[in-house]
């Protein structure tokens, strides 16, 4: 974990997204006070809380591996935070039953964790956090082990509760759709470093570097070696022997790129169009594999500069072993320098 500088507004719902081992959980544990911070400060409402113990931070946490109390039944598992705060018994009862209803746990209320299914355990873990009215919610993959339909349902429930209570929430997930659905902003992390913070839309369209571009998006990004060239007054990129002009907007956003230096072009497979061989601005390719996936098909094509995946409507899919042209929707493409940083600055910097 290094140099994490993230400001979360009061009442904001921030998702931390990243591959496993990227420091998401460590970040959350530091916020919760379970892991020491070796350098830097954690401020809540302007107060430094580095040295405040976990029990006094007034944060509720959902642990990734549930961490239920195995010797207590569901009722008492969920009631534990209230018992610690000496809430009156009848109020505890009311609140536990209400949470159990929300989470569909009423029938299991007297069961011990060991008799519950994984999904039920996860909901108990969620219930133990939701029963509180903490300053901050910390959730570590709270829906990671639920079936798809329950996940979607509880995702909406978490978002609804958030809108109702407005409690600041930090939510870890590896599912970008989930992050997009529940979060106001998404923070992408990799290798212990924060990469970019923004809405899912921002991350998709204006990734700051190659990692974010590769990590976000429904399909894996195509990366092709290219050069930047100046051609008749405007900027173009050269892929193999093909020169594709950049849009005026991209030309304006282009920063810090040297002509003729080796760069990488990032194109999402759904921004690749299959056209006839020799069409204007198309790259010659050989269709190696066609994977039908219902309405769309994934076309794996070999080009002189490497393999390119394209996602096309199944009705327009070429046949295997045919020669085709690939046309890139250049306005949606990304250009990365040798260090992986995007050469297109965010729109904010242009205005």
């Amino acid at each position, binding site marked *: 974990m290094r140099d994490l500088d993230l400001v979360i507004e009061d009442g904001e719902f921030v998702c931390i997204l990243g591959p496993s081992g990227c420091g998401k959980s460590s970040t959350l544990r530091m916020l919760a006070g379970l892991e020491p911070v070796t350098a830097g400060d954690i401020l809540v409402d302007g107060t430094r809380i580095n040295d405040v113990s*976990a*029990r006094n931070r007034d944060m509720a946490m959902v642990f990734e*591996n*549930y961490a239920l109390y*195995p010797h207590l039944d569901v009722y008492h598992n969920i009631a534990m935070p209230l018992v610690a705060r000496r809430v009156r018994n009848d109020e505890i009862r009311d609140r536990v039953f209400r949470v159990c209803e929300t989470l569909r746990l009423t029938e299991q209320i007297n069961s011990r964790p*060991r008799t519950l299914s994984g999904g039920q*355990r996860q909901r108990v873990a969620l219930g*133990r956090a939701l029963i509180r009215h903490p300053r901050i919610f910390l959730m570590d993959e709270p829906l990671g082990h639920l079936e798809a339909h329950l996940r979607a349902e509880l995702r909406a429930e978490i978002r609804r509760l958030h809108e109702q209570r407005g409690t600041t929430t930090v939510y870890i997930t590896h599912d970008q759709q989930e992050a997009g659905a529940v979060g106001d902003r998404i923070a992408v992390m990799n290798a212990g470093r924060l990469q970019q913070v923004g809405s899912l839309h921002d991350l998709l369209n204006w990734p700051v570097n190659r990692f974010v571009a590769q990590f976000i998006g429904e399909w894996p990004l195509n990366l092709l070696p290219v050069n930047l060239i100046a051609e008749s007054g405007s900027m173009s990129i050269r892929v193999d022997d093909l020169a594709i002009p950049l849009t005026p907007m991209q030309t304006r956003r282009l920063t810090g790129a040297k002509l003729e230096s080796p760069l990488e072009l990032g194109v999402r497979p759904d921004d690749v169009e299959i056209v006839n061989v020799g069409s204007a601005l198309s790259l010659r390719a050989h269709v190696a594999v066609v994977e039908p996936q219902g309405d769309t098909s994934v076309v794996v094509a070999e080009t002189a500069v490497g393999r390119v995946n394209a996602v096309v409507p199944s009705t327009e899919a070429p046949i295997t072993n045919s020669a085709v042209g690939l046309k890139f929707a250049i306005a949606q493409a990304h250009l990365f320098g040798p260090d992986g940083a995007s050469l297109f600055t965010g729109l904010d910097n242009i205005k």
Partner: protein
Amino acid sequence: MKPSRSGSAAATAKGGELAGGFRLVPAAVLVRYLVAGTFVGFCLFPFYIILTTSLKAERDIFAWPPVWLFDPTFKNFYQALFVFGGQGAFAFIVNSVIITAFSTVLSVGLGSMAAYGLARFPFRGRKQLSFWILSTRFAPPIAFVVPVYLMALQLDLLDSRIALVLIYTSMNLSLVIWLLRGFFMEIPIEIEEAALVDGYTRLQIFRRVALPLVRPGIVTAAILSAVFSWNEFLFAVILTQTHAATLPVYLSGFSNAMGLAWGEYMAVGVIAVLPITLFTAMLQKHLVRGLTFGAIR
């Protein structure tokens, strides 16, 4: 125990049932039970002799050949408890119970806290401290007899229950700490972290979360401590004479000074075994596995 039991069950099932309802028992199973039975019989036979002798009248005790069927009498027990040697065994039973109870509660109580600290708090010299605690049991107890006697003498604790409670507690502590440290370390740390986030203090977590989860360990430690304190003879015989003497001390004096009052002697033997057996039987149902199942994924 478990594998052999399920193994034999499987073997019987394989043997199958014959048409007439007879069960074929494979020879291997038979042999297994025979060996086990012989061993158990060998171990329990002396106890059988003690129990039957304690219930026999004097003429049956010395009868030869031994009588296997006799009219049981509780006269020996009455004699042993209240009459024999002027005051009977009763006072010594009370001593044993008090000393065992106090030393067990103390060693399990203090030991569990020490074990929790050693298992959970990463302080400097933790490993060395753990090893040092274990090493207190390396030397044979008899090596400590003289120093301990002198210490008791200086503190005016000779022939007092306190002296034995303190010694037994210190001797049991290392065992209790080592046993429970392992149990505490097996509790997934996240359960305690969850309790911390839920707003509990360290002490509350220890009492409400950690302790209930190591119940089998507590029970094992209590049984081992109690059995040790109940049966300990060396320090008891050296530090106590009359006032604070425990049952083993009484028993040893019995056979020497009173000649061979076999009936009463055996009755005291039965009485000496009974409380600790009951104690163990009572606690045994808590020796269950898997208390932390379901806590984490």
